[in-house]
C-alpha cells in the first residue's frame, strides 16, 4: 500500500459567514505517519479532517496530498479511506457488501472483489461475519467493518473521525492497539481526530493540539506532554500545576512533585484530598496559599497519607516548563 503526505496551507473555513471553525491552519503530515488532531469540541479538528476528505472546501488556503493540490478535487476522486464516529455502515447491506462497496464503485471484477473483501475482513479478524447485517454486530465489530471498508480500497490516506468514541473503555483500549498495529502493518498515513488526550498520546507518532480553530502546538506525544508550549496545551493534556508567580506562566506536572518529610521540603502543606487511582494516588495539597496536585506512583512500599496530614513538597527546577503565554 502506498501512502501519501498531507499538507494544509493556511487553510481557513467559516460557517454561515461568521463562525470561524478553522483559522489559518498550516500542517505537514508525513507519509506513513499516525497523526492526531487533538482538541476540545469546536476546536476545528473535525472540520480540518473534513476538508482533507473533501466534504468541506476551505474558504482560503490549499490542501495537498502526495505533493498534489487536491483542494478542488471532489470527494469521490480523492482515494481516501474514512472512518466515521458513528461508523456510517450501510444498514441495508451485509458486512461483505459494505466492505465491497468501494471496490464496486471502482469497477473491480467480481472475483477480485471477493478476494479483497475476504482479505480485508481477515485483517480486522471478522472472517465468518460476511453475511451479517450491521445491526447484528456489536459496537466493536461494527467499528472493524468500518475499518475494513476503508482499507479495502487501499487508500493513500486513512481518515478517522473519533472512531473509538462510542466504545466502552476496555474495548476502546483494545481497539487502540489494533488500529495502531493495523496502521503500522499497512504503512498508511492515518489522520486521527480525537478529544481524548490519552488516546492521542497512546497512539500517535505526532499530535497537533488545536484550540479555537488554530494549531497550538505540533509535536511527538512526549514533546507535547513534557514540553507544552502554551498554557492551553499544558492544561488540556493531563493534569498540571500552573505556577503564575513570575512574569511568564510556568507549569509542573503532578508526577514531578515529590511528597517528602516537611524537614526536606521546598514547601510545607496539608493534604486536602487523596484520590486513589489504582497504580497511583493523586493528592491535592494546600501549601503557600494555593493548591498543588501531586501524583505518587505506588512502586515499592506505600505510605498512604490521609486528608489533614502535614506533608512537604519537593521538585527539581529542571522539571518546570516555562509557557509562552
Amino acid at each position, binding site marked *: 500500500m502506498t501512502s501519501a503526505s498531507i499538507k494544509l496551507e493556511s487553510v481557513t473555513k467559516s460557517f454561515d459567514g461568521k463562525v470561524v471553525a478553522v483559522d489559518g491552519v498550516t500542517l505537514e503530515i508525513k507519509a506513513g505517519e499516525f497523526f492526531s488532531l487533538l482538541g476540545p469540541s469546536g476546536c476545528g479538528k473535525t472540520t480540518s479532517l473534513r476538508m482533507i476528505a473533501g466534504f468541506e472546501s476551505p474558504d482560503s488556503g490549499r490542501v495537498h496530498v502526495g505533493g498534489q493540490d487536491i483542494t478542488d478535487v471532489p470527494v469521490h476522486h480523492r482515494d481516501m479511506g474514512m472512518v*466515521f464516529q458513528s461508523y456510517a455502515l450501510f444498514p441495508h447491506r451485509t458486512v461483505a457488501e459494505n466492505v465491497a462497496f468501494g471496490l464496486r464503485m471502482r469497477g473491480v471484477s467480481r472475483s477480485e472483489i471477493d478476494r479483497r473483501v475476504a482479505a480485508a475482513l481477515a485483517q480486522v479478524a471478522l472472517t465468518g461475519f460476511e453475511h451479517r447485517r450491521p445491526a447484528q454486530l456489536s459496537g466493536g465489530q461494527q467499528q472493524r467493518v468500518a475499518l475494513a471498508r476503508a482499507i479495502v480500497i487501499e487508500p493513500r490516506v486513512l481518515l478517522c473521525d473519533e472512531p473509538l468514541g462510542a466504545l466502552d473503555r476496555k474495548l476502546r483500549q483494545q481497539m487502540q492497539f489494533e488500529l495502531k498495529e493495523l496502521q503500522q502493518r499497512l504503512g498508511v498515513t492515518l489522520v486521527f481526530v480525537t478529544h481524548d488526550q490519552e488516546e492521542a498520546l497512546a497512539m500517535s507518532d505526532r499530535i497537533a493540539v488545536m484550540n479555537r480553530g488554530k494549531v497550538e502546538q505540533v509535536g511527538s506525544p512526549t514533546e507535547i506532554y513534557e514540553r507544552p508550549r502554551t498554557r492551553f496545551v499544558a492544561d488540556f493534556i493531563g493534569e498540571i500545576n500552573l505556577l503564575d508567580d513570575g512574569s511568564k506562566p510556568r507549569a509542573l506536572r503532578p508526577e514531578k512533585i515529590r511528597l517528602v518529610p516537611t524537614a526536606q521540603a521546598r514547601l510545607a502543606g496539608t493534604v486536602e484530598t487523596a484520590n486513589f487511582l489504582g497504580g497511583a494516588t493523586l493528592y491535592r495539597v494546600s501549601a503557600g496559599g494555593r493548591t498543588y496536585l501531586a501524583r505518587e506512583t505506588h512502586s515499592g512500599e506505600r505510605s498512604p497519607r490521609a486528608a489533614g496530614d502535614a506533608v512537604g513538597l519537593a521538585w527539581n527546577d529542571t522539571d518546570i516548563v516555562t509557557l509562552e503565554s
Partner: protein
Amino acid sequence: MSSVASHRPSPIAWLIAPALLLFLLFFILPFAVMVVMSFFSGNPISNPNAVLTTRHYQRFIEDSAGIFHDALWETLRIGLVTTVVSLLIGYPLAHWMARMQSRLGHALALMAVIAPLLTGIVVRTFAWMTILQDKGVINTTLISWGLISKPLPLMYNEFGTVVALVHIYVPFMVLTLIGVIARIDERLEQAARSLGAGRFRAFLEVTLPLSLPGILAGSLLVFALSISAYVTPSLMGGTDVLTLPMLIAQQLGTSFNPSFAGALGVILLAVCLVIVIAYNAILGRLSGEQGLA
C-alpha cells in the same frame, strides 16, 4: 416499537374508548351495512320481500352495459398516474426539505407544502378549473400569443383530473417522505462518496433504498386517496371520466340502488387491498426484507 408488553392494562387504557367507539360507529358499522346490503335484492328493513342474492356482483362481472369494467380500469389508472406523478414531484421536494440546514427555511417550505391543505378540496378544484378550462388562464394566454388556434383539452378529461388530484395529494406524499428521509444519517451518503461514489450514485445506492419504506407508505396513501376521490373527478373529469366512486354515487343518488352501490364499494375495496398487498410484497423484497420494517 418496544416488544416489552405489559400484561396488565395501563390505567389510562380507557382513554382509547372514545376512539374505539368512533371507529366502531363510523367505520365498522357502515362497512358491515354495506357488505350486508350488497347481498340483498333490496333494503331488508323497508322491503320485507328482499332476498339474499349475488346478482349485484354478477351484474358487475357480466357488465352488459360495458361501463363497469371501464370505470374500474379508469379508477385504477388515475390512481396509479396520480401516485407516480406525486412521487416524482414529492420526493425531490421532501429530500430537499429533509436536508435543509436552516430552520427558518424548513419552516417556510413546510408552510408552503401544508398551505393547500388549508383550502377545501372543492375550492382548490374550482381554482384549477379557472386555470385549465377552454376559456381559462392557460388557453386564453396561449391563444392570444398565437401559439395555438384552438384551446388545448386541459380539463374535462383524465389529464385535468390527474393535475387536480396531484395538487391535492402531493402534501401527503411530502409529509410522509420527509420524516423517513430526515432519519437517514447524512454520513451514510458521505461514506459512500468517500468510497468513490459520485453524489447521484451515492443517493441511488444509499438514500433511495433506505427511503423505500417512506415511498411505500406515501404511495399507498396517495393511491388509496385518489382511487376513492369523488369531488375532483366529478368536477374535472366532465363526461369523459367515470370512476368507481362516481358510479357508486350515481347508483345511490339517481338509480336508488344502494345494494349495487354496496357491491361496487366491496369490489373497489377488494381490488385496492390486492394491489396494496402486492405492492407491499414487491417493495419489501426490493428493500432487502430486513431492517426496514
